[in-house]
């Protein structure tokens, strides 16, 4: 099967500029979105990709065509856009960002009323409207409005929840690396407002990203060096749309993106509120240790922010997220938000009076392997079948791919929705035990 790099799926539309992502497709998708949600006030924000101007004009054209009253919010992190949509009671929003994908990509992410991603069934209906191509075009398109200082709502909300005095007293020095992305124009001010001393690296908007935007350890060398050089207490890295967060300790060592969520949850339960916690099926077991210690319920949702967010609502969870650095703080908004994450981790540092490496050291060690295998969609099903045979002694869940739990390790094998790829995750208590299971899986494949 020939696989296109254009991905039109329930996550939105994504493709490579100059190849698959054309203004025609963007216009059509925006017309479908406005038709589907019935027009109204729709905010548009983008990350810093150079193609944003092309994409944005097409988005506005499509929105206006189908009766929307668009609001141009300029460069804006996706959590800020979600919060703005919620607080201003808008009808929806479009974020122009390919998130952690490289610079040649771009994408539209669709936000519904209330500041959440479209629900999966809604996204499916939207695709129906898109493919049918029968749009509710209007005779009298509206004008485009500009939003005023849209990040400030987000910042105020967080600053109001955090004890900035204690952070200021401790004279915490932070290095932050927003990857020249959507957080770049805001993050320095934001961290200063929290009371820290800030050094920003990769803060300028450049043509193209200064590093690979995915905030995983191998992409964070600039940040690690800067933390050591400036003798900072902590380092933070965001991705291009600023929903995910990774942290580096005072020695310049990445703690692993699974541990940013773990530390935030640990702190929240210790200090803020005992509340149920929701994480997705791929999130590290360290969360279980934390919720057990705190004596609160842990629920696991399907992978994807909207699934975590909705389950948090159902279960009354105040904190949760996704293990890949997506921290969700319900008091701010049930969306993945690197800014809320940074605020709580800084408050944790200040309040505990400990070093960042010590805070990390208090959590049990797990070793996680994340791996991708190319497989056709049929092969993917066969792989799942073989693995469920092989690991039939474990506790098997088939909610989202195949998750198998054993006392000392777990594995999650999940076919991608958009690519002929199977994602494999194995977590054990040590590198050896994880490697051993991983080898067994690879032998089956």
């Amino acid at each position, binding site marked *: 099967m020939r696989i296109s790099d254009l991905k039109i799926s329930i996550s939105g539309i994504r493709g490579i500029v100059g190849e698959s992502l054309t203004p025609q497709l963007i216009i059509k998708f925006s017309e479908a979105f406005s038709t589907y949600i019935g027009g109204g006030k729709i905010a548009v924000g983008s990350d810093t990709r150079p193609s944003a101007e092309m994409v944005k004009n097409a988005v506005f*054209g499509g929105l206006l065509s189908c009766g929307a009253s668009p609001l141009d919010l300029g460069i804006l992190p996706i959590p800020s856009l979600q919060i703005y949509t919620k607080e201003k009671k808008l009808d929806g929003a479009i974020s122009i960002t390919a998130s952690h994908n490289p610079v040649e990509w771009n994408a539209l992410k669709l936000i519904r009323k209330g500041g959440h991603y479209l629900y999966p069934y809604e996204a499916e209906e939207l695709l129906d409207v898109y493919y049918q191509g029968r749009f509710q075009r209007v005779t009298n398109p509206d004008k485009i409005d500009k939003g005023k200082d849209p990040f400030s709502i987000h910042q105020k909300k967080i600053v109001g929840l955090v004890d900035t005095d204690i952070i200021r007293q401790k004279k915490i020095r932070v290095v932050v690396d927003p990857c020249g992305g959507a957080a770049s124009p805001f993050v320095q001010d934001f961290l200063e407002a929290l009371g820290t001393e800030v050094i920003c690296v990769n803060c300028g908007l450049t043509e193209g990203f200064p590093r690979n935007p995915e905030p995983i350890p191998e992409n964070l060398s600039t940040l690690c060096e800067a933390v050591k050089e400036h003798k900072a207490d902590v380092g933070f890295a965001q991705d291009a749309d600023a929903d995910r967060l990774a942290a580096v300790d005072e020695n310049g060592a990445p703690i692993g993106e699974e541990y940013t969520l773990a530390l935030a949850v640990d702190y929240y339960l210790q200090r803020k509120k005992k509340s149920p916690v929701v994480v997705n099926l791929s999130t590290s077991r360290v969360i279980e240790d934390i919720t057990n210690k705190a004596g609160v319920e842990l629920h696991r949702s399907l992978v994807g922010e909207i699934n975590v967010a909705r389950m948090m609502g159902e279960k009354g969870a105040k904190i949760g997220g996704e293990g890949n650095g997506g921290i969700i703080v319900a008091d701010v908004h049930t969306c993945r938000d690197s800014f809320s994450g940074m605020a709580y981790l800084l408050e944790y540092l200040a309040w505990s009076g400990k070093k960042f490496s010590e805070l990390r050291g208090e959590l049990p060690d797990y070793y996680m392997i994340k791996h991708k295998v190319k497989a056709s969609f049929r092969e993917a099903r066969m792989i799942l079948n073989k693995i469920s045979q092989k690991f039939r002694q474990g506790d098997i869940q088939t909610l989202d791919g195949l998750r198998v739990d054993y006392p000392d390790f777990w594995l999650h094998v999940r076919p991608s929705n958009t690519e002929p790829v199977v994602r494999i995750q194995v977590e054990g208590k040590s590198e050896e035990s994880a490697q051993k299971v991983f080898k067994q899986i690879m032998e089956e494949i």
Partner: protein
Amino acid sequence: MKDRLRINVSGIRGEVPGALNVGVVSKFSSAFTSTLEKGRIAICRDSRNTSHMLAMAVLSSVIAGGLDCADFGLLPTPFLQFLMGKETYSGGIAITGGHNPVSWNAVILLDSEGDYLDISEGSEVFNIYEAGDFTKASWKELGHIQTITFPMDRYFEELSHIVDVDRIRKMRFKVVADPCNGASSSYMKDFGDFFDLDLIPINDNPEKPFPHPPEPSVENASQVEAVVESTGADIGFLLNSDGSRISFVNEKGVAFSEEMTFPLALLSMKGKINKAITTTVTTSWADWAAQTIGIPIARTKVGQSSVVHVMESEGAAVGGEGSGSLCFLSFSLGYDSLLTLSLILDLMAREDKSLSVLTALFPERHMKKVKIDVPPERTYRVMDRLEELYSRENPDYTDGVRVERKGVWFNIRPSSTEFVLRITIEGEKQEAVESIEDELRDRMGI
């Protein structure tokens, strides 16, 4: 007819929403961009409520094709064409329905000099459109959008080489302007100031809807007529939505046909021009005016594309149409209403005569223009029948069928912008015109 698109060198035209929408406009812009050399495209739009939306589709598609946009925003098309003749552009796009009703719009493609495309250039774009084979720039090569303000002073500077500005200024003309809330609205004041006019603008807010159909004509002139009469103005005028056409109201508050515009402008250019081009459906006043100032006049097909291209190939200094349009080749390659207005003011100042006196010299002519709804699939049969009926009268086939009889002529042709047949009849006597209309209606069974 809402769902039908008209694609030709006078624009990609249709009703919005319907045949013309952001998707179609985006595809055409990508196709056009694909035919051009790297560089920048000049872009402007009129004040229609759909134009800013279509402009966004244009801007996105042009930069996606790797060319830059010089975005002039709301601007009369002739201004864009003027500037394109002076500066370097790869091409131009004007988003304007011109004289079409407000529910219509069009994308007009211009070459590097601001000239309409000819048929072969147009088909190149249309072929790429059909094939969907667009040039796509990588993220590094995407174009950029630059917002630009039109340099009005350059326009006036050039205008002062054509008309005697001081002579006009001294007259202190009182002028009623009706730009129909179109693209020219914002430039009325500058124009009035430059010529020291006592300007009385009406309908000059581009944010507001069109107060009447945006077509300069007697039927649409009643407001201007009333204001001229009540203010005692020397002249009043009406523009279409992109400032390419103009018609006038005299000092008595009487509107005259848009057919009068071109012949009047010819009189103004006495001694400055060698030759004029017009169309087979333009009034015979044009011949009279050309004769009066001693120049030859030739006729071609209807439309800015054919008139201007014939001017270029024949080396004719001036061209125009009965729709109230005029192009002066050394000024720009577009029909320009404010240039035309300047010429008429210059004529009034030079002769020191009122409009009613100037037009009293014109021989008696009566013209009737009739529009008949005929869908494209019926055009062939209807036209074929007419050709057969009139074949013995030695017709002219330049644009449809044109028959000349003693004291009267008529032309029937399919419109290139609307789904109608246009009948034009002109005679020395009103009765002759009416009898031709009866004859045609009878023979065509309408």
